[in-house]
């Protein structure tokens, strides 16, 4: 059964991968744009989920890391005219520095206190972005960020970068370090009594999470060629929260599935109404109320129950 499901999973993933790489040859510019958007936001959601799904900490401050790297890249390229590699490094470094600052201020707290501190810092950051017009461009943001390559070339760069990052995060999550993070989520005190500093482990998780969120921010800045304050607003921190809740925060692929649903739902519903958030809100409420494990968690539960009922039947037949 396990071998069969592994083969099936391998088949599905390979098919998706091949389709993703072939898509620019088969579809139009808008579909390509949506796929890039899904891939960037998937990286954002998976990076966020290191804190939420594995450390058990709900952060409302990830828009800081996302926008800090995007704005740094924008400023470096358009105002300072730095070479692209320097701008990329500066963007990543900024997201790491901000993750250390946010982590230092918030990681000694948990649950609602952690969420509120990250939310407050996010609002503060947005305030700075809006008011510091000489650097950030205020409400107008920064425009003219050139990627110097075609949209199709950028599509492939984006997909390869996101897949590489997801692979690295996967390796981290399923390493000994990932086990310690799961331990923190399960029983923080027992991790301390196991001679590990919970604060240090959380800080490391926050830096890793911030770094990959920063990479997503850089990809985003190149996608539109502009950076606007929308990505610094606290509501943009809610995007990975919703994606993780829809897909299932306790699995690696959950936030990716959630992002796909989120982006497609947004795109589909806005064709009929501007108030797409109302419908999305209803979906999130229903998932939280009736499908706590999200899409992936619910499917896993149903499959497991089906598998166990088949096993029970088998044993009963044997006994008879």
């Amino acid at each position, binding site marked *: 059964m396990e071998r069969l499901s592994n083969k099936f999973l391998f088949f599905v993933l390979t098919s998706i991968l091949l389709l993703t790489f072939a898509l620019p040859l088969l579809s139009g510019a808008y579909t390509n744009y949506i796929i890039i958007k899904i891939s960037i936001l998937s990286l954002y959601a998976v990076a966020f989920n290191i804190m939420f799904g594995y450390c058990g900490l709900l952060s409302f401050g990830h828009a800081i890391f996302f926008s800090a790297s995007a704005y740094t890249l924008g400023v470096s390229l358009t105002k300072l005219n730095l070479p692209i590699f320097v701008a990329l490094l500066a963007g990543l470094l900024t997201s790491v520095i901000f993750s250390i600052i946010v982590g230092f201020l918030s990681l000694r707290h948990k649950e609602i206190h952690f969420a509120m501190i990250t939310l407050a810092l996010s609002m503060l950051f947005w305030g700075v972005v809006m008011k510091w017009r000489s650097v950030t461009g205020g409400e107008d943001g920064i425009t003219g960020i050139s990627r110097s390559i075609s949209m199709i070339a950028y599509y492939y760069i984006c997909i390869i970068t996101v897949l590489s990052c997801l692979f690295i995060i996967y390796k981290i999550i399923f390493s000994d370090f990932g*086990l*310690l993070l799961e331990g923190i989520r*399960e*029983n923080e005190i027992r991790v*301390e*009594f*196991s*001679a590990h500093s919970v604060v240090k482990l959380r800080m490391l998780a926050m830096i890793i999470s911030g770094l990959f969120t920063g990479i997503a921010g850089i990809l985003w800045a190149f996608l539109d060629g502009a950076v606007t304050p929308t990505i610094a607003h606290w509501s943009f921190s809610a995007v990975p929260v919703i994606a993780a809740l829809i897909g299932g925060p306790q699995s690696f692929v959950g936030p990716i599935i959630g992002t796909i649903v989120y982006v497609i739902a947004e795109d589909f519903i806005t064709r009929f109404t501007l108030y797409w958030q109302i419908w999305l809100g209803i979906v999130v409420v229903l998932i939280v109320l009736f499908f706590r494990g999200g899409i992936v968690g619910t499917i896993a539960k149903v499959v497991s129950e089906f598998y166990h009922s088949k096993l029970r039947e088998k044993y009963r037949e044997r006994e008879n």
Partner: protein
Amino acid sequence: MFFRVENLTKKFGEFTAVNNVSVSFEKNVITAIIGPNGAGKTTFVNLCSGLLKPTNGYIFFNGEDITNYKIHKRASLGIARTFQIVNIFQGLSVWENVKIPLLSRKNTRDIDNTITKLLTFFKLENIRYTTSSEISHGDQRLLEMCMALALNPQLLFLDEPLAGINPQDRGVIIERIVEMKRSGITVIFIEHDIESVLKMADEIIVMHKGEIVAKGPSSSIKENDFVKEIYLGGC
């Protein structure tokens, strides 16, 4: 002295749970802490293991003042503990539960072998891949002790290790505690079942209203009039 506390006091508002306790423990001795409910036994262990900060007093381990050390630092020095209510990683497998404390060791090269050895010592090897919330209460107690032992501790606090355990499993736990002493671990445990205490302990400390009212070898404590009156019901 191996482990010692000086004038240790813990107050919760007006209530004094541990009152000016000074006591020392020798290496490689099993000490039982007994006393009626509310005597301050668990608070004393919580103070020693770092879960609570003392209002007053000092804690020394191998001559080092560890009063202000955090839990993980005490654990890395070799102080481990178990809890009155089993405290394990319920959602993780038995194997992963033991792996987490082992990851704190500097040399983690032979970690799989060490886990197997530890699980075999506690007779848990057959349920290694079972989620720990699905194993019996007795096995959970053994698992918690196994996790504490994975730290390679010098000093081990056990808070009511026999609570809620059936008579067959009690034998296994008592056997393991005595074996731990043989391998050089100093054990300090809290227990209500006086019969089991007498089987395991070299020394007994009696606590009452946050103070130590008697301390000595098991044989002498059994005959202590004050102990008979307050704890053994005058028998």
